[in-house]
């Protein structure tokens, strides 16, 4: 009996493996990419008034679709909760997960997933009232802090204050919305969560100009797209789609300058847009794969500014997410 069960399990696994080892083929046959996003996270993935998904994470999915189909609209989005996002990826419901998921060792290994890079370096930060005249998190000794229960936020907070020998008083709430309301009504001096969220929650405060986000970032939250184990080609495609967006910014290729770039004589630009070499074909795509991404979605900087940066309601500064040669840590390997 046990033998039978084991055999069955092995058979199931094998079918699952062989099915997942050809994601690109499946996607091409289906004619659309299925992309897992959040159920609504400002600036990263949220539906606009017309019901179109927009955001930084959404743009990555559109870029993958642009690279494969030369059409950024050939994506279907599935809004996943934090609980079911990895299950949905493992079970094959989605082809790629682009849902502000933090890259950690246990997720990368034991969950059977691969993180294909980092499209947003997030980290925990602090928001305070301007009236407190605090300029640094190190001046927060004795402060009362509002935070959400049961998240790593609480642990990071404890570590940070202990390491700097500061006292604090924590008031924790079950949901993000409660936490914001409590902070807004003055129940605590400080509100802490991931910086990207601080910016979006700031929009919900009664007088958003009375608040300031402190420069310190006390934790590492690298967010990036995720694929299943067992399909290296697909892993490469997702990874290099992100790298292509970063490289485009570094090379100065944007939506508006793409036409010039296509005629460029510079070797690195020629390799990027596919007028030289067959780099796209090595990925299983076409020569102009990277040019398609820029034409339909734009480079990383454009996508950042449009969705979360100064061109959006959120107004998040580039910071760590600037390119490596601009003071940030976004760095993509070269295309050659």
């Amino acid at each position, binding site marked *: 009996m046990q033998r039978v069960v084991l055999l069955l399990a092995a058979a199931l696994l094998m079918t699952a493996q062989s099915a997942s080892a050809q994601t690109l083929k499946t996607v091409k046959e289906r004619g659309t990419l299925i992309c897992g996003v959040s159920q*609504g*996270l400002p600036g990263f993935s949220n*539906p606009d008034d017309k019901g179109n998904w927009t955001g930084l994470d959404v743009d990555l999915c559109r870029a993958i679709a642009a690279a494969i189909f030369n059409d950024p609209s050939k994506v*279907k989005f599935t*809004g996943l909760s934090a609980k*079911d996002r990895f*299950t949905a990826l493992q079970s094959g419901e989605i082809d790629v997960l682009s849902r502000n998921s933090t890259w950690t060792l246990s997720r990368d290994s034991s969950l059977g997933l691969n993180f294909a890079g980092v499209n947003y370096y997030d980290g925990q930060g602090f928001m305070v009232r301007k009236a407190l005249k605090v300029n640094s998190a190190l001046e927060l000794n004795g402060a009362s802090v509002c935070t959400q229960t049961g998240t790593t936020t609480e642990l990071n907070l404890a570590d940070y204050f202990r390491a700097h020998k500061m006292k604090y008083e924590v008031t924790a709430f079950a949901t993000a919305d409660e936490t914001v309301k409590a902070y807004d009504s003055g129940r605590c001096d400080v509100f802490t969560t991931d910086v990207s969220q601080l910016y*979006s929650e700031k929009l919900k405060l009664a007088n958003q100009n009375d608040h300031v986000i402190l420069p310190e970032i006390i934790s590492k939250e690298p967010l990036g797209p995720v694929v299943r184990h067992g399909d290296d080609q697909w892993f490469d495609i997702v990874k290099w789609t992100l790298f292509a967006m970063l490289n485009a910014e570094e090379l100065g290729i944007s939506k508006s300058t793409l036409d010039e770039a296509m005629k460029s004589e510079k070797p690195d630009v020629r390799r990027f847009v596919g007028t030289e070499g067959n780099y796209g074909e090595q990925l299983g795509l076409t020569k102009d794969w990277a040019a398609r991404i820029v034409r339909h979605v734009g480079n990383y900087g454009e996508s950042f500014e449009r969705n979360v940066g100064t061109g959006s309601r959120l107004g998040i500064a580039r910071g760590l997410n600037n390119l490596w040669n601009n003071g940030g840590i976004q760095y993509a390997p070269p295309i050659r």
Partner: protein
Amino acid sequence: MSVAYLRRAMAEPEPPPVASHGVWARTRERLFSGPFNIALTVVSAIVIAAVAIPLLRFLVIDAVWDGASRVDCLTETVGRPVGACWPFIGAKFTQLVYGFYPWGQHWRVDLTFVLGAVLLVPLLIPRVPWKLANAILFFGVYPIVAFYLLVGGRFGLDHVETRSWGGLLVTLVVAGTGIVVSLPLGILLALGRRSQMPIVHSLSVVFIEFWRGVPLITILFFSSYMLPLFLPGTWTLDALLRVLIGTALFASAYMAEVVRAGLQAIPRGQIEAGQAIGLGYWRIMGLIVMPQALRLVIPGIVNTFIGLFKDTTLVLIVAIFDFLGQMRAAFADPNWATPNTLFTGFAFAGIVYFLFCFGMSRYSLFVERWLKRGR
């Protein structure tokens, strides 16, 4: 002997004392008839005022009615304390009704709604004739028509994946399917559970206890993510269909127990009387037992329906955006994030759900009264 005084005309009736009729007397009688009642009235009035006045201020008086983005709903722009931000609902209304259903195809959803209403309303009004034909149209033909209208792919209609459905459409489809499937299936299960046949009996018991013993969230999660792992590779079931089956079976198990309660209230003598005049099992059940049993458990049935309608909000956890899920997604739009967006959205959702549930509840009261006329 003469009578000293004989009244010849009837005395004019005096009007009743002021204290016993009219609005004032009724108020006094009901609200201020003793120290305890006076205290109770005063306390209630304070509570009502404390709730109703701020609510009215928020929803109507201080509310913003026009605007194009979050800026129009901010205190600093409007220059006074603001309440509900109704333009937010206006901007998201299409999404709340149709979800991500493609623009330009919305008429298909509208037509489905209208057809449903046109067939359902006469079915609900007892006086309207041709009940049988109407029922066949609504329960037999309408689901097929609605399926082809909404899914498409035939008759020149574009195929629309259920993945793009959402909003009120999904809420109504899930609740509607659940309601329409659970009643007949529940009746069969209840009969099965009371059956003398051991296999039918034990299967029904196992089915009912299994589905009642597992939380709906678990069922949804299992059917959405675990089931595909067990099915052979080429076999795929539509995500929404999986959820529909899950909720319908779940509701059926509850319905079975409600119906069983009604069956138990019918004395055994009635069945025996039926047998004595030579009726078979199905005729006894259909003509004698069920009509009485169902009449008894109308409140329970409607209770299950209302519960099911509200349980549909759980489908969000398996990535299907029902009305409330679509609302939550709308909250994430930075273009509309204001201090009051959340309250506005939930207030609107509350009103919508209340209208549906209150409607069902009122209709069930009407049916109960209508059925009691004969007694």
